[in-house]
């Protein structure tokens, strides 16, 4: 099933499975990438991403069309992420090193040690800052879009991105 995202959501509201499948296929990479930037390991991120799409299925009627469907999905993912924050911190200490040693599917050209260093540096940032950096630097959203998705004031987003970038740059060292 093709069509724009708003039509997909309208079909989902009517119970269309094929529209739901298309929505997942179209946005899973973006949502999972965002959540992987926030969590300690990819399996936590994928778990939250699954919950995000389930929420989209049940809450399709709540979409008001004020932003894009992807922004709406990111807002749901962000709320899920904040709700699970405490659980991650317990799990993160336990298995971060193991999961980070696994190869990523997206960019095999990035050396493992760089990815591990990046992940550790990201995890050292406060959650809000991490989300802002992931959205603006990682996914290419504007500060305004990120502010809307995260429901954080624009000035705070700008400051989060600036500080986050400053903290992440040193991990690049002489390799860049």
């Amino acid at each position, binding site marked *: 099933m093709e069509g724009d995202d708003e039509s997909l959501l309208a079909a989902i509201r009517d119970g269309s499975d094929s529209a739901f499948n298309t929505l*997942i296929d179209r946005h899973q990479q973006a949502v999972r990438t965002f959540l992987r930037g926030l969590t300690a390991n*990819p399996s936590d991120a994928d778990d939250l991403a699954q919950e995000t799409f*389930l929420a989209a299925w049940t809450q399709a009627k709540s979409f008001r069309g004020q932003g894009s469907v992807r922004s709406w999905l990111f807002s749901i993912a962000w709320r899920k992420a904040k709700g699970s924050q405490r659980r991650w911190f317990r799990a993160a200490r336990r298995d971060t090193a193991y999961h980070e040693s696994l190869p990523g599917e997206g960019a095999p050209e990035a050396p493992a040690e760089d990815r591990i260093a990046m992940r550790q540096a990201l995890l050292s940032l406060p959650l809000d800052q991490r989300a802002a950096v992931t959205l603006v630097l990682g996914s290419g959203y504007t500060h305004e879009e990120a502010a809307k998705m995260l429901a954080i004031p624009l000035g705070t987003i700008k400051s989060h991105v600036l500080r986050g970038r400053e903290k992440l740059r040193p991990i690049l060292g002489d390799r*860049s």
Partner: protein
Amino acid sequence: MSEDRDNRLVELLRADAPPERDPVFRLKVLERREQRQFQRRLLTMLAGMLVILVGMGFAISLGNGALAPTGALIVGAALVSGYLAFRGQVRRILGRFSL
């Protein structure tokens, strides 16, 4: 130099991106949705059964057992209602055992 670093930063931030096409992920979402729907139906059914049992026990206790046939009627009605509500699933399950 600064731009190179920023580009490298972006590249590393995207390094953990999952594949663009991932049918396994979609299947996991659909499976989870099925599980949730099944759990919800099951809970509804159990709650309904509980209400019927309590109502039946109360009805029977009113007449020192004289209302036992009424109880049987209520159970029968509950079974018929249950079948009508879940006939799709019942047929699907029974279909697995047919030759």
